[in-house]
């Protein structure tokens, strides 16, 4: 491997100083002259017709500028963008009826937030209650009341896809392992809620937006349609974003509410969700799945086939469609050689807030289902959990590997990752420790999950479900310039969403030019000046920014070399670059510094090679490095998520059988996400992801009662793990570079959360093995575990 100067180093983050000193610029920090503040009235009913809305008392309150309802939304906006073909229509304010408790019914703009909330409380709404659907199994029955009257029913999408010889794999099986599993709904819950400040200029038709939306250049043109402005008149400004985890991709609702009020009032309007808004009505709720899964296995434990049948409760709208199932298909067979599989999905609409996206994006759930099956297979066949994985791993010499659905796994060494995890954990010693603990009557369990973490999505996952094709680009761009004083500036077209894009950009530029990343300035542009950029999501940004910076740096170097060659009387191909500037290869004293190069390029036209234009700027758009189209018959979905990372997690837990409480004694995680750009930043991603996985496994759950009332509308009820619940994570790395990307980088943003729930389920099941308890459902709350233990103890027949 080539020696590298900056890639792979713990470079201090460029983002940190402003964040540490309270000088960042988050959406709620935006203050404009005359700015009004918005508040939203939300439906207390889960399903009801809106009979009448009287806003007169609210309008009469001093300090109120405007009150709008669904009727205004029909006039001032178009429906919100949705990534699906089905005609599921959603406005930012409910039109005619409400479909979940918490849906926005009216919005107020006032002199301050206090007055706006006062006014919202003065709006009188008369509802006519409709039957509430909270159970997807009931909702999908023919004749059930409909969430959307224009649809044939609540089963909004249904499809079976089959890859490879599934029937043959099951026919040849020695045994079929079956599980019914439940993956419950969680919520991303970044500490910064979603929000927007909008300002409309009726004279020019221009709408300025400051919002923590992530995809400013990807969906900006769609948001323009929603806001009824020309895309050329819509400027979305990138903000510092206080965490996203997939939950701030579009944010059409908050932007549309602020924009409609801005049009109505003629003022800038800020709408920041409060936590209740965010927990009950945002875009950050994750998938909510009921799995029936089957794994066909040979007598020696070889996997011969897989069937996944999943019902997904989408809530009231279908914003991202079945994209999270496309996501799961990318790695549905995991790190294992399974010759064929079948995937059946049923997407159901109910009276709950709609699903958005949360870190893992559907692959987290699939990892859980697959790893539960693998543990079950080991148990039923009497095989060791480690051994059954080894027997089925795709071997290191098999890459690039085409999995049955057609996606390509670029590279990997799964046995090596597993071995490192086992060594770090001290697997055999742990087993001894466990035996001693059991002898003392303590329920100690050791978990194991070996799972995939796909990165860098292709957009085909949103449409290969249909016969007609859709988008095929997911680019990312940067601008790069060397100024007349010798300073490098990189411009990004996607916002800072909570990790280290500026640092990555600076490190890669440092590597390309030999300069210190600390000297690089990174800046952002609004959507009116944007180059093609899809934004953060699907663990793509490190790969895509690396590619974009390499491309831009090479273009810039070409021009700098021509100028340097001209000044140094050398050939451009003999010019090399280093920390101080350009020099002639092998003649280090024949050199020109970056400041001189910049100065000449901008202001000394007569010193430039003939015909060269002034300035030193390069722009580069990096397209998905390995995307192939699906076949017409959809038997081969093509390569759509090929940068395939991998991880092995080994948590050690102790369960208190009386209280059902789980204590994590140790947590070992080894990840392979290709070449590491910034180890400390990656470590943060892994530890942070595992913390969210611990939340998913033990605490976090979005709940509704039978009447559709949200039961988890505050942090008192929706429990995020604290520093007391998250242990020190022991992190190891394996680096198998990707053959498809610059520097061999893969994305590592989601693996922690994609693997931890499966690993913890395995650990708790192992702890409760003496009682014969199986874990089929998360979160493993004290109540749930205590109930399982009690049932096992009082019905010893359950004990295997």
């Amino acid at each position, binding site marked *: 491997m080539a020696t590298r100067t900056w890639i792979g180093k713990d470079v201090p983050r460029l983002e940190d*100083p402003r964040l*540490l*000193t309270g000088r960042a610029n988050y959406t709620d920090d935006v203050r404009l002259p005359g700015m009004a503040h918005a508040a939203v009235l939300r439906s207390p009913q889960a399903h009801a017709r809106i009979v009448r809305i009287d806003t007169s008392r609210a309008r009469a309150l001093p300090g109120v500028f405007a009150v709008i309802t669904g009727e205004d939304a029909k006039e001032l906006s178009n429906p919100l963008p949705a990534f699906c073909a089905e005609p599921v229509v959603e406005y930012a304010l409910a039109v005619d009826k409400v479909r979940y408790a918490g849906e926005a019914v009216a919005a107020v703009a006032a002199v301050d937030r206090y007055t706006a909330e006062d006014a919202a409380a003065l709006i009188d709404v008369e509802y006519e209650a409709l039957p509430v659907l909270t159970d997807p199994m009931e909702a999908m029955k023919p004749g059930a009341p409909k969430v959307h009257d224009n649809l044939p029913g609540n089963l909004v999408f249904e499809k079976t896809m089959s890859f490879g010889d599934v029937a043959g794999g099951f026919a040849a099986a020695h045994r079929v392992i079956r599980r019914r599993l439940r993956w419950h709904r969680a919520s991303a819950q970044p*500490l*910064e809620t979603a929000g927007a400040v909008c300002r409309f200029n009726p004279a020019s038709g221009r709408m300025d937006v400051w919002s923590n939306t992530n995809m400013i250049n990807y969906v900006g043109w769609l948001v323009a349609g929603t806001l009824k402005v020309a895309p050329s008149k819509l400027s979305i400004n990138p903000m510092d974003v206080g965490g996203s985890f997939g939950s701030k991709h579009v944010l059409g609702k908050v932007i549309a509410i602020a924009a409609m009020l801005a049009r109505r009032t003629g003022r800038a309007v800020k709408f920041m969700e409060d936590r209740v808004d965010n927990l009950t009505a945002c875009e950050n709720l994750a998938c909510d799945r009921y799995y029936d899964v089957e794994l066909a296995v040979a007598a020696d434990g070889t996997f011969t086939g897989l069937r996944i049948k999943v019902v997904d409760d989408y809530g009231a709208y279908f914003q991202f469609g079945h994209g999270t199932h496309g996501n799961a298909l990318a790695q549905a067979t995991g790190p294992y050689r399974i010759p064929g599989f079948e995937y059946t999905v049923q997407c159901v609409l109910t009276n709950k807030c709609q699903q958005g996206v949360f870190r893992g994006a559907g692959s987290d759930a699939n990892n859980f289902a697959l790893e539960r099956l693998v543990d079950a297979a080991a148990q039923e066949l009497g095989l060791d959990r480690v051994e059954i994985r080894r027997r089925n791993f795709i071997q290191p010499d098999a890459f690039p590997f085409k999995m049955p659905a057609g996606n390509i796994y670029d590279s990997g060494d799964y046995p090596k990752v597993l071995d490192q995890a086992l060594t770090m954990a001290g697997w055999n010693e742990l087993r001894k420790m466990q035996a001693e603990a059991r002898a003392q009557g303590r329920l100690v369990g050791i978990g194991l999950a070996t799972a995939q973490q796909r990165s860098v999505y292709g957009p085909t996952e949103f449409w290969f479900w249909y016969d007609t094709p859709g988008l095929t680009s997911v680019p990312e761009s940067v601008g790069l310039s060397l100024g007349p004083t010798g300073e490098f500036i990189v411009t990004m077209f996607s916002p800072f969403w909570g990790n280290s894009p500026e640092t990555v950009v600076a490190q890669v530029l440092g590597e390309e030019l030999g300069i210190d990343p600390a000297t690089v300035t990174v800046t952002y542009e609004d959507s009116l000046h944007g180059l093609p950029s899809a934004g953060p999501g699907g663990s793509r940004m490190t790969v895509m920014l690396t590619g974009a910076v390499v491309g831009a740096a090479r273009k810039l170097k070409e021009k700098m070399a021509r100028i340097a060659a001209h000044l140094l009387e050398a050939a451009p191909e003999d010019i090399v670059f280093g920390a101080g500037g350009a020099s002639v290869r092998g003649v280090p004293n024949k050199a020109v510094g970056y400041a001189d190069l910049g100065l000449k390029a901008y202001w000394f036209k007569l010193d430039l090679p003939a015909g060269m234009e002034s300035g030193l700027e390069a722009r580069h758009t990096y397209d998905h490095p390995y995307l192939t189209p699906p076949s017409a018959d959809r038997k081969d979905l093509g390569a759509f998520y090929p940068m395939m990372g991998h991880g092995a997690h080994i948590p050690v837990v102790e369960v208190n059988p009386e209280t059902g409480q789980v204590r994590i004694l140790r947590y070992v995680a080894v990840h392979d996400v290709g070449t590491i750009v910034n180890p400390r930043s990656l470590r*943060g991603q892994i530890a942070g992801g595992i913390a969210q996985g611990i939340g998913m496994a033990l605490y976090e759950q979005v709940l509704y009662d039978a009447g559709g009332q949200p039961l988890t509308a505050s942090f008192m009820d929706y429990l995020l793990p604290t520093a007391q619940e998250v242990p020190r994570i022991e992190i190891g790395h394996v680096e198998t570079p990707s053959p498809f990307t610059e520097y061999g980088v893969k994305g590592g943003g989601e693996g922690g959360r994609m693997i931890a729930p499966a690993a913890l389920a395995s650990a708790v099941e192992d702890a409760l093995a003496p009682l014969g308890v199986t874990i089929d459902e998360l979160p493993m709350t004290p109540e749930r575990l205590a109930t399982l233990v009690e049932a096992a103890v009082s019905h010893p027949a359950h004990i295997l």
Partner: protein
Amino acid sequence: MKRSASVIGLTVNGVRHELAVEPRRLLVDCLRDDLGLTGTHIGCEHGVCGTCTVLVDGETVRSCLMLAVQADGASITTVEGLAPDGALHPLQQAFREAQGLQCGFCTPGMLLLAWELLRDNASPSEAEIRAAISANLCRCTGYQGIVEAVQLAAERHAVPAAAAR
């Protein structure tokens, strides 16, 4: 309805302010909107996440649970007060070196929580650090970097024991 305003006096980061606020106005809104100190962030507005933590007379307070009128006469430190000239305070430097932050949103509150801990306990154990910072939520880091940052700051005596008194 008409609401009367009360005149209060606050000393924030060493600067004395006199301002009229409605009795219901939250301290965090007063700091952010009336005084323009947007380094203090709002996370949940119901006292759980601790994102809005500031020091009031040297003690950490959730500024979303305190009314501005209750702070009348108090001396308040916000994150802007840790590094008034923009150079990083040694505590902030430790957070940077140990990467005790990612998105930065919980960071001001975490810094003030750590500041209070180290003032009262110059060499806390890991368990004591975890107990102290579990008052606040972080959704990015998994807390590991924060714990290590506080340990690093303790080693360096980044916070003088008597600083607040």
